[in-house]
């Protein structure tokens, strides 16, 4: 069964090709069948491959499938090889299953849009690229998938390209991630030129042999890869593109900007964990960036009025948690949170999509309200997802994954208490803003009646994901609560386990504190936004309050800062160099030619005597040279 591995990324690519070439001739149903179906088949293939892997793990807990030799130059021979180990098992399952559910949902969501075929085409290409990324055994192939998802992100954010604002958002996403991609390419080159291979496992092996801990090369390579991860995963300082990326259709936001592409950075760091372990300062930087980002995004989410922007900042914040986990060495906890986050965040987006579509593309939460009677199913699933996001104790998957991260943060090395405190504060904020979102959207008075209810294509994914949100945490339950270690045992064959953890008593205390924080957040949100909203209104009316609100709403002013620091000087320089001074060299040559021609033209007087004189002059000079 393992030989079917190549089908997993190949099927979505095949779907892309079919839709690109013949999509116009297919009916709507046909397009959706090919688009969602190819990913569905890929998911089935992934399930088959992965169950076979689980049932009888191959030697060394990893299986490689080499498809062909990509480049055959001397000393540089990357191959198209797929690598299956527990991490890629988890990732491929998440990507293909969640991808299929979202595509199934979009069959109805995007109905009525004239770019139907184009949508499924791009989505298939995206899923194919993402699967290539997570299954790649060669760093160059990973980079191929990396760039592919970046391209599809651009294409899909700017899907409704007629509105120039969408095009700008797409370009912003591409350019900001490009900065990260450039760092990653540099890191890739550094690794390849120093270690002589681009195959990931071989790289990690050679790195640990040749570079000691803390060596300059390891730090540089890890830092550069981190740069790439920061761009793709929208962490500080490259996070400005994600809120604007909400200009794309909601399924795009669900798939790309919640469940899969933005987690590519987390995956990269987990894959290259050997390298990061060799570079302690960089690993510490990962943790610190994660902690700061999760707080930053939490505050920003609190002030947003567009429902999708709340979710965007929430994504940034949750990925901050994953980075925090990676930074303290809790690799499997990070992947665990990645999985649960994929479930509840995509569910949140899909539910928000139902609301937005029903209210005629209304994004502003303050214009929504009281929808729980009108859209009961959506409300229920949305509530489950929000609860999972807030990590409500015991019943939600998010609780278990977030708890794993927080307890690892507590027991990690230097600065562990601060990191844990940041994570805890972030948990409180998460709870507040997610239930603020729930209360504003589904409670209160009904301002606008939704014009459509979700059909079967939308209900099935919503229901499936909500079930996963609840039971998904049961694969990893801490000691104090049942000690199920299926997930971490599975992953710890390839990822080093987290540092020794505290006694059961401290762990239980930590869990209680975390649980209290999330429940407290719900209550705070209820009080401030449903029960007595006038407190908040009065506070935002004050000078300080208004300023703070504006600051958080604009994402702590990063856009403004980048505009002043980078965009304006660059545009000024481009305008100043309008008559391209480098071009003037080649222009000067042309002008020189013209001038010389004009000068020589004047020697053609048409007078025979002048020509005779020139002949004699030539003869004189020739004899001079010959003789003298």
């Amino acid at each position, binding site marked *: 069964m393992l030989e079917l591995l190549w089908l997993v990324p190949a099927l979505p690519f095949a779907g892309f090709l079919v839709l690109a070439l013949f999509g116009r001739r297919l009916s709507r149903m046909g397009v959706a069948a090919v688009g969602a179906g190819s990913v569905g088949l890929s998911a089935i293939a992934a399930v088959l491959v992965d169950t076979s892997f689980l049932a009888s793990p191959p030697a060394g807990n990893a299986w490689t499938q080499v498809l062909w030799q990509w480049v055959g130059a001397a000393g540089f021979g990357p191959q198209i090889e797929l690598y299956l180990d527990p991490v890629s098992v988890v990732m491929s399952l998440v990507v293909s299953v969640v991808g299929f559910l979202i595509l199934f949902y979009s069959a109805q969501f995007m109905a009525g849009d004239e770019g139907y075929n184009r949508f499924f085409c791009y989505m298939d290409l995206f899923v194919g690229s993402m699967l290539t990324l997570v299954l790649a055994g060669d760093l160059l192939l990973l980079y191929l998938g990396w760039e592919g998802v970046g391209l599809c992100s651009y294409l899909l954010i700017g899907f409704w390209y007629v509105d120039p604002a969408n095009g700008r958002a797409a370009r912003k996403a591409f350019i900001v991630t490009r900065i990260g991609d450039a760092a990653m390419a540099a890191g890739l080159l550094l690794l390849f030129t120093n270690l002589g291979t681009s195959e990931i496992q071989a790289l990690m092996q050679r790195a640990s042999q040749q570079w000691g801990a803390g060596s300059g090369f390891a730090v540089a390579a890890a830092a550069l890869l981190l740069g790439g991860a920061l761009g793709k995963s929208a962490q500080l300082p490259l996070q400005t593109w994600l809120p604007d990326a909400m200009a794309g259709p909601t399924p795009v936001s669900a798939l790309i900007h919640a469940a899969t592409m933005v987690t590519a950075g987390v995956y990269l760091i987990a894959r290259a964990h050997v390298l990061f372990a060799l570079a302690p300062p960089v690993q510490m930087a990962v943790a610190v960036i994660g902690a700061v980002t999760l707080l930053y995004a939490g505050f920003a989410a609190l002030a947003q009025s567009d429902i999708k922007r709340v979710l965007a900042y929430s994504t940034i914040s949750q990925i901050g948690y994953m980075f925090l986990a990676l930074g303290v060495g809790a690799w499997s906890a990070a992947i665990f949170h990645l999985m649960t986050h994929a479930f509840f965040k995509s569910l949140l987006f899909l539910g928000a999509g139902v609301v937005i579509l029903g209210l005629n593309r209304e994004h502003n939460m303050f214009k929504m309200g009281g929808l729980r009677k009108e859209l009961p199913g959506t409300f229920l699933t949305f509530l489950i997802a929000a609860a999972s996001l807030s990590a409500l104790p015991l019943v939600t998957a998010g609780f278990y994954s977030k708890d794993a991260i927080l307890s690892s943060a507590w027991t990690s090395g230097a600065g562990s208490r601060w990191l844990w405190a940041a994570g805890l504060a972030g948990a409180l904020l998460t709870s507040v803003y997610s239930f603020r979102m729930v209360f504003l959207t589904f409670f209160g008075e009904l301002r606008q009646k939704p014009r459509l209810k979700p059909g079967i294509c939308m209900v099935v994914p919503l229901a499936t994901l909500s079930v996963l949100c609840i039971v998904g945490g049961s694969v990893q339950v801490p000691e104090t609560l049942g000690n199920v270690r299926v997930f971490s045992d599975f992953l710890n064959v390839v990822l080093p386990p987290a540092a020794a953890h505290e006694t059961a008593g401290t762990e239980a205390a930590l869990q209680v504190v975390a649980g209290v924080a999330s429940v407290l957040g719900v209550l705070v949100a209820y009080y401030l936004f449903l029960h007595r909203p006038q407190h908040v209104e009065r506070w935002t009316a004050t000078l300080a309050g208004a300023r703070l609100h504006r600051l958080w709403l604009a994402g702590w002013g990063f856009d403004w800062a980048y505009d002043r620091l980078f965009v304006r000087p660059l545009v000024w320089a481009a305008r100043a160099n309008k008559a391209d001074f480098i071009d003037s060299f080649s222009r000067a040559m042309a002008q020189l030619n013209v001038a010389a021609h004009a000068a020589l033209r004047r020697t*053609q*007087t*048409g*007078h*025979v*005597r002048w020509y*005779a*004189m020139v002949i004699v002059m030539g003869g004189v000079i020739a004899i001079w040279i010959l003789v003298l």
Partner: protein
Amino acid sequence: MVTVPVEHGLMLAGVLFALGALGVMVRRNVVFTLMCVEIMLNASGLAFVVAGWRWGQADGQVMFFFILTMAAAEVCVGLALVLQLHRRFQTLDVDAADKMRG
């Protein structure tokens, strides 16, 4: 016959050639230009004959023969052209036919 140093003969040819070249460069009347060309040809023929005399062979005279033939042919065609020039421009000014300029 004469026993003049060879270089004197060649120098004479050079002087005549230079005078012919001077005439071509200066004269504006096209007939004079042709005459000066004849002077130059004659001078080069003289040089060949002197060279043949230096070696005592007939080759110098053979060359002069060919130069003479060529000069005759050239004069024929040249004078025909002069007649055409005169007919078209009503002048013998060689500068009148300067349309091939620029």
